[in-house]
């Protein structure tokens, strides 16, 4: 089972990686802002799968951190883009 969970984490990370490269190319700032959003969901999914694979459930706390800070980072990015 840990092997399957690692594989699932790898797959989701791959999706995040491909998505990130697409988003960072833009063209609009709103596109690029989604990079933070993507890590807010994909990053959490990778973390939780890793937590289950290794049995270290304290990693779930890190998931809460990512959710809070990805939202903060996304708002900060929009605030920056807004000032043009």
């Amino acid at each position, binding site marked *: 089972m840990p092997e399957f969970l690692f594989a699932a984490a790898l797959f989701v990370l791959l999706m995040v990686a491909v998505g990130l490269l697409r988003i960072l190319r833009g063209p609009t700032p709103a596109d690029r802002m989604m990079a933070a959003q993507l890590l807010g*969901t994909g990053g959490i999914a990778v973390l939780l799968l890793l937590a289950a694979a290794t049995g270290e459930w304290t990693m779930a706390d890190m998931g809460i951190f990512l959710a809070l800070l990805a939202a903060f980072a996304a708002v900060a990015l929009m605030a920056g883009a807004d000032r043009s």
Partner: protein
Amino acid sequence: MTLLRDLFSIVAICAGGFFFLAGTVGLLRFPDMLTRLHALTKADNLGLGLIVLGLLPRVGSVLGGVKLVAVWALALLASACVSQVAARMGRLRDEP
């Protein structure tokens, strides 16, 4: 019983992975910002929810399960709000 539990986890996590795939395909294929935003927030959050569902029977404690669901709920609410703001920002720029 363990087999059934593992089967449940595998099915739910695979379904979650599928939605992440769908979200990424949407990001790559959709033509404009609003549809890409739609692909990202809808599909990925559903994918995360399914993965959380698949992991629930493996946590081993009720409190741990509550925490997992809380993580998902938090991610869901935050990304719903953020995508609203982003969509408005994108529209303001597209329509001079």
